[in-house]
């Protein structure tokens, strides 16, 4: 049995150590907000925060997450930056299908937590690991700036 701390709550799971955190969260903990997109850390849909840093949960084995603080899309709104990002996402109307947006929001929140006033280059750097097939990138950029209090103009 492994104990995980997810969104501030201790949770016990029984799964082999090599099980990716993604599937532990989705299939065992029942938190399906974290999405599967590629399984190879190529698309960012599965992004969660491990001790405050963004990681791809599809490439993070359960053993590496044990005992650490995990924040998922379901809990990120409790942080100041996470809440600001969520509010900006709705204000700008970012989501289309919404599937990748959990990962986008997690990456954007981590960016703003580390860098409250990101430049366009910073946004490119931090967000290019997250694929959106609906093509919401221009609005994501606008929403990140809005959440950073940098205005809505792109």
């Amino acid at each position, binding site marked *: 049995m492994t104990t995980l701390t997810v969104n501030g709550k201790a949770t016990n799971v029984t799964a082999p150590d090599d099980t990716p955190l993604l*599937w532990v969260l989705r*299939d065992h*903990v*029942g938190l399906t907000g974290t*999405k599967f997109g590629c399984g190879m850390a190529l698309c960012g849909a599965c992004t969660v925060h491990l001790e405050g840093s963004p990681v791809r949960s599809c490439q993070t084995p359960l053993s590496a997450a044990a005992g650490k603080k995990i924040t998922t899309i379901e809990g990120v709104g409790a942080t100041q930056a996470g809440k600001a990002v*969520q509010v900006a996402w709705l204000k700008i109307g970012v*989501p289309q*299908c919404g599937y990748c947006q959990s990962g986008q929001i997690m990456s954007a929140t981590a960016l703003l937590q580390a860098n409250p006033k990101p430049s366009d280059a910073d946004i490119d750097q931090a967000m290019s690991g997250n694929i959106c097939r609906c093509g919401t*990138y221009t609005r994501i950029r606008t929403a990140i700036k809005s959440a950073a209090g940098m205005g809505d103009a*792109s």
Partner: protein
Amino acid sequence: MNARHPMQALSDYISAGSPASASNKRSGTSRRRFLQAAPLTGLVLYVGIPGIGVAADEPKKYGGEGMPQGLRDSPKIFVSIAPDGMVSIVVNRSEMGQGVRTSIPKIVADELEADWKRVRVVQAPGDEARYGNQDTDGSRSTRHWFDPMRRCGASARVMLEQAAAARWKVPLDSVQARNHEVVHTPSGRKLGYGALALAAAKLEVPVPAAVKLKDPSQFRYIGKVDTFLTDGQAIATGKTWFGIDTRLPGMLYAVIARPPVLGGKLKTFDATEALKVPGVVKVFAMEGTPPPSEFQPIGGVVVVGKDTWAAIKGRSLLKIDWDDGAHASYNSIAFRSELEAAVLKPGGKEVRNEGDTYAALANAAKKIEANYYVPHFAHASMECPAATARIVNGACEIWACTQSPQAAHDRVAKRLDLAADKVTVNVTLLGGGFGRKSKADFVVEAALVSKEMGGQPVKLTWTREDDLHHDYFHTVCAQHLEAGLDANGKVTAWLHRTAEPTILSIFAPDPKALAPFELGLGLSGMPYAIPNIRIENPEATAHARIGWLRSVNNIQHAFAAQSFIAEIAQAQGKDHRDFLIELLGPDRLIDPTKISDSWNHGESPERYPINVGRLRKVIERVTQEAQWGRKMGTGQGLGLAAHYSFVTYVAAVVEVSVDPKGDIVIPRIDVAVDCGPTVNPDRVRSQIEGACVMGLSQAVVSEITFKNGRVEQDNFHQFEVVRMNLAPRKIVVHIMPSAYDVPLGGVGEPGVPVVAPALMNAIAAATGKRIRQLPLRAQLGSAI
């Protein structure tokens, strides 16, 4: 475990007690209705394939009426009002990012005079006999359902007014519904919708003559700019329910190893190692349907586990021997040569012929020709196909991210040999669709796995590798174009020859020519004023499953035609915009059926002629907005393209900047779109923005290739798509103003086709280098 019961979120989408509810408290009402109203016929099996299965002596129906099961407009189907006044509006189409779960309820709520804050959205399960056509593709949802949903909301409003007038014993014309209540105008008395709901529900739906639609000036939601999304809050907080998110008590998880080559079969497999993986429960073979397999599964080896990871890991340890069959020689490099040779030879099916093009070309003062190539693409929706099924007491219930729940329902019933009323398909949110998820193969797979597991609930997940290897791919295409010019540079002849495997190949053995519904996607209906036009379609064989991908054949047809027109202009030193408008000729209405487009997107040629003036106007608008003709710096250029598809007029200007290494940056794209009147302008914009990005992926980085019959790309490191760093820095969408008496056009797809040609025209302007094959990738590498 998570405190939130997994089905709770699902019930946010699906009303409790409806046939879709997971609570098993099903009334079965809708399925009884289904049986009464729509005995299954062979016709249903061809849902969504235009022109197949329609008896010749039936009067031709168009638009939504022409779709299987047609339209419905009764509020008794779509609207219910609770005693507390909460209005529930049923959405019969699938949400995949286009915003249909917002726009359709907006239409109903507007005519109903409902307060949007007291509206909830209920997702319909697959039941076309009850809900009308549910096949969410072809850019048709708002286009077909705008009028019936207006009538639906207005009828409900009238019923509430009738109930109030009866309660007060006053004339009907003395009461008026306004913002969720009915007012007796002379006295100012008011009754809320909740108080009137029960009495109103007992009334007959008024006859159409008694239902007055709103004057568009009175619209409160339709056409208004806002960014509100029905599912926005749930998306932003991770509380959505997609096909991959279904969780049922005692559920198992499955993945399938499928034959890597079209028509391949399983010879033998060894599951010894797979079964040693902790959590793997069972491994078994699933029989597939040989080509043409339509929307049925292609078979393979199923691994069932206690979680998704156990199933994936178990599958990776299978030893499988496949019999690849006849398509094992499919090789994209060789096939490209085959297609290119085919389009260089005169002949093939005559698609359109006006004047004498060959003679005109022979006599032309100048002749220009060019060849274009567009590869296979994959849909690669961010959510791979996924479905969950269980079988209880001989009834199969499914939750799936399907664009076409009725099509899924019918195929499950057929493959599992179940009566129609023993299958329920519930629709979750779709994490992208783009046409892939109108195919039911993954839904049938889930049902088959559950059956093998004794009816236990099973969630079938496709991995990204599965998705890329077993897509219904965008076809592959070679095209050859020739133009003849007279001494004044006027185009006198246009020859367009295209070879591309047809979508018909998933329905019939070895067809080699395009169907009308493919020719009608940007090829046969070419609207330019040229006296001699000839379009030919040489044969091509499909060696992979081919399907509809957002904008479909328009992608290659617009790429070739819109690049070629720019090439003709450039060859003569003419301004591309001016030349394009000149080539369009005078404003006029063209009957598409008179220029060999018998299909016309299923729409009436009288109601939806090609309006050349509207195409001209989007070109003028977009070039004006993008400041066409402005001075550009070194390595910078503007490129233009215009295209009519899905009965919508679109023109785009792409601004490109090419650096000395041949890498590109796109500072801005302007798009002008005339789709008639709009319901939700913000979602029109977002669809066009998304189309720009998808079009750019195709233009710049995406390609699916085959070697030895197998797809060579496994995941996003090989099937590349546009990411933030390559995305346009700015996309500006200009929606052309339109009166509400103009018939609606499509929105989801028509933004895509203009992107690749506009980009390549911009690159030509910036560098002088003409790109005639997609994707761009490193083609500019050494040229700058």
